[in-house]
């Protein structure tokens, strides 16, 4: 794992098995257990509103994790993530409308669509880097969304495609509580896949490409192969998130996948903290809940109702401000803040970490 | 003794907040002198010059200790454009001209402090007087110049900034000896006619000591030896390791080690 520093003082690894273990100390295991129990118990206490928020967070988390793999680890910038989500959602929607396909077919189909699109999104990355790559993904986003819109108008669903709640073995997947568990499972699964990918050869290859392409190539890493792989995996995950979104909302429309959504996903990984899965999760939570926090804050003001029409604009402006603040003042994101707090307590009563190779 | 034009006092520069490039270099430059800074690759010569002329944010380098004083004013860690306006101009080692600008544009781009158009034209004539070749090349693009022409243009565009102190990094790099000889004579002429003080950084001691009044030898980021031209040219180590003149008999490894040991005393 990337953090060389033991998470608890006095803890040092004594074998390779320990290095590979997902949880390292008893405290970690205990807190993970408590966290899981809380997650599982949550739907039994929460209101429908909070349940919906949690579900949105899970959906965003899948998308943010996949983008983090691509951008935060493999270093390939994408401004077209919403296009991939749209592709997944439309695959599910179209298959449902045209051949009435069940959910256990549409979700894998969405993943395949995502993977194929991933190759297409990834091809420019073999020639382009940085800015130009970002621009090419931006252009692809517009093209995917155009194709979706084209389908809507040509088939006469100009307001969008409605999808009925899917049925598996006579059981109707409907309601916030059921979807809470479905989405939680998918989000946890994505997280597990990401964690394992990153500590395998693939993850190391991605990180090598991110730090220096030429050096990575000289070390015998197939640049083209791993770049495409990053795009394929990330896009497949994003497409699955899109398909789940379609089922959860029972509705697909191009309007939901604007450029702003792409930017929101980029914002998630920046605000969360580049190069950290925890960052992707924190970013997903933050960006998803942010508009609701703004709304709640606005409603506290005197004669709140008169502002209601402006809510959307306030959200936009506040979101821009937050993004700028993070980019300028905290490029490491929420994870950076979290790590600083962690180190503070870990090193207490000392103040600074001894820097390896520090002067004098 | 009059206070020096430029004095560098126990200068220390750190790159990327981690790598110490020079540690505790001190030099002083008197008005009207030509001072040579000698040393091999990585000795810290270029870094010293860059520290005097100022770093940009993208360099990620800082003067962490010591002082650079120019005409009684502290100038370390000032941005390059301010240092240039104070009268210190650097001719860098690489990328010393704007490749996509013509020669005339290269000479027009530098910012000269409060200069009227007449003064500017006068300055231009002066430059073409020192480097008549550039006048013929006015419309040629900087990237298409030969190495020697490029070096001329670099010095010339430095002169546009009206320097009192000209810092030149590796004048002789990649140039034929006859071209270097010519450039050195131009520098002497510039000093004589404009009274500009010059600091040159060189790997080639033979070239530098030909025109320099005083010299410093740097190794591993420290000054290991300094003195006027007579002292340096006659110094045994310099003769052997920089001028390549052996005193006749074959040297063996022990002598080199002897030198390595002895040079610590200079630091």
């Amino acid at each position: 794992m990337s953090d060389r520093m033991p998470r608890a003082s006095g803890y040092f690894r004594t074998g390779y098995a320990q290095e590979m273990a997902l949880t390292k100390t008893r405290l970690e295991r205990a807190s993970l257990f408590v966290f899981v129990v809380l997650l599982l118990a949550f739907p039994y206490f929460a209101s429908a509103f909070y349940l919906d928020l949690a579900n949105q967070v899970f959906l965003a988390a899948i998308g943010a994790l996949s983008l983090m793999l691509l951008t935060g680890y493999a270093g390939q910038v994408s401004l077209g993530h919403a296009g991939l989500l749209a592709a997944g959602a439309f695959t599910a929607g179209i298959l449902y409308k045209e051949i009435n396909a069940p959910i256990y077919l549409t979700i894998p189909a969405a993943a395949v669509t995502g993977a194929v699109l991933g190759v297409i999104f990834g091809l420019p990355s073999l020639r382009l880097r940085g800015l130009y790559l970002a621009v090419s993904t931006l252009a692809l986003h517009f093209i995917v969304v155009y194709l979706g819109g084209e389908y809507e108008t040509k088939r006469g669903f100009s307001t969008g495609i409605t999808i009925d709640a899917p049925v598996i073995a006579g059981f109707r997947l409907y309601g916030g509580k059921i979807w809470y568990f479905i989405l939680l499972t998918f989000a946890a699964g994505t997280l597990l896949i990401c964690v394992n990918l990153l500590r395998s050869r693939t993850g190391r290859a991605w990180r090598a490409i991110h730090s220096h392409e030429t050096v990575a190539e000289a070390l015998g890493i197939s640049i083209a192969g791993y770049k495409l792989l990053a795009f394929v995996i990330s896009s497949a995950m994003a497409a699955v998130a899109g398909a789940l979104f379609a089922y959860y909302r029972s509705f697909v429309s191009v309007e939901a996948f604007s450029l702003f959504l792409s930017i929101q996903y980029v914002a998630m990984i920046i605000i969360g903290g580049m190069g950290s899965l925890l960052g992707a999760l924190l970013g997903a939570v933050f960006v998803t809940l942010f508009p609701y926090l703004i709304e709640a804050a606005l409603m506290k003001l005197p004669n709140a109702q008169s502002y209601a029409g402006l809510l959307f604009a306030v959200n936009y402006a506040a979101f821009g401000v937050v993004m700028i603040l993070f980019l300028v003042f905290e490029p490491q994101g929420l994870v950076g803040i979290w790590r600083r707090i962690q180190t503070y307590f870990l090193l207490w009563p000392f103040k600074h970490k001894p820097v390896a190779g520090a002067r004098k | 003794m009059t206070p020096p034009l430029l004095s560098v006092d126990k200068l220390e520069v750190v790159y990327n907040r981690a790598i110490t490039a020079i540690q505790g270099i001190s030099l002083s430059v008197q008005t009207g002198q030509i001072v040579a800074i000698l040393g091999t690759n990585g000795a810290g010569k270029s870094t010293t010059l860059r520290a005097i002329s100022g770093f940009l944010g993208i360099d990620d380098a800082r003067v962490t200790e010591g002082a650079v004083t120019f005409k009684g004013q502290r100038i370390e860690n000032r941005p390059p454009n301010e240092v240039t306006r104070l009268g210190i101009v650097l001719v860098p080692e690489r990328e010393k001209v704007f490749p996509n600008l013509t020669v005339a544009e290269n000479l027009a781009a530098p910012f000269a402090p409060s200069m009227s158009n007449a003064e500017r034209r006068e300055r231009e004539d002066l430059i073409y007087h020192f480097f008549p070749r550039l006048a013929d090349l006015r419309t040629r693009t900087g990237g298409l110049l030969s190495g020697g022409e490029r070096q001329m243009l670099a010095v010339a565009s430095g002169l546009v900034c009206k320097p009192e102190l000209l810092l030149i990094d590796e004048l002789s790099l990649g140039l034929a000896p006859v071209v270097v000889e010519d450039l050195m004579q131009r520098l002497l002429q510039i000093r004589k006619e404009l009274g500009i003080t010059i600091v040159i950084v060189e790997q080639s001691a033979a070239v530098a000591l030909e025109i320099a009044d005083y010299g410093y030898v740097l190794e591993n980021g420290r000054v290991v030896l300094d003195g006027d031209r007579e002292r340096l040219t006659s110094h045994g180590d310099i003769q052997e390791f920089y001028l390549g003149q052996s005193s006749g008999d074959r040297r063996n490894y022990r002598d080199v080690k002897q030198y390595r040991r002895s040079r610590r005393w200079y630091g």
Partner: protein
Amino acid sequence: MQLFVNIIVLSSIYALIACGYVLIYRVSRVLNLAHGELMMLGSYLLLTTASSFSGHPAAAIAAAVVLSLTVGVLVYVFLMRKMTGEMALAAVLTTVALGILLRGLMVLIWSAQQQYPGQALGFSNPAIALPGGGRISTFAALLVLATALTYAALFFFLRFGRWGVRMRAAGQNPLLAAQRGINLHAVYALAWGLSTLTGSIAGMLISLDSGLTNTMVIIGLKAFPAALVGGLDSLAGALVGALIIGAAEVLSIQYIDPLLSDVVPFLILIAMLVVRPWGLFGTREELDRV
């Protein structure tokens, strides 16, 4: 003939906007994705000055022009200046965030409704019949003229103006430029100011011609392929790129499918990125800058 007029007008719009992308990219290697929003801000500024200088349209336009120049400089001084020395990508994302912020603010201040600064200024917009049977509205004609003038002025400034030469110098080698006494911050601020100014002029003329809504941002975004197809660091390229994009868009609306209008620029962009990523007139080594 009308088709030809449409192509020229649309290309002029794109060209006038695209030169803003080129200016900033060429001088500071930053891609300004907030350009569309800044352009829109320019037309809203005109709306405001039109109501405060009612009866003096010339004064209103002059004030709006000065204000937009100031806005550009302020954006650099208060925001982008902090991003110098950071990764190019962080700077781009900052402009994206700025765009979102501006979009929100503009709706808050001026609402999202369609507005007509032309009416506020008391201008009418009669169509002019052209020889050959085409028609062009007055402000569209003015826009074509403004584009021609802007490009002529920019070419002249960058070629012969002392600060223009300095801008080119800073774009080629910022360190050497600083060592030659050029204040990089001044040059960058100037680039941002000029870029916002040209964008705002485009925005004002578009809004005078066809009203002002917040969909104008899309036009700004579609002008970006024009800049890239021509080469992000080439003014002449932006002109050619705008012509290609404009023609392709008008022709595909006419002969294939109106829905395509929002995609065609990006299809061409992708094609260009595959074949010649540095654009028609761009410098090749730009590609490696990340």
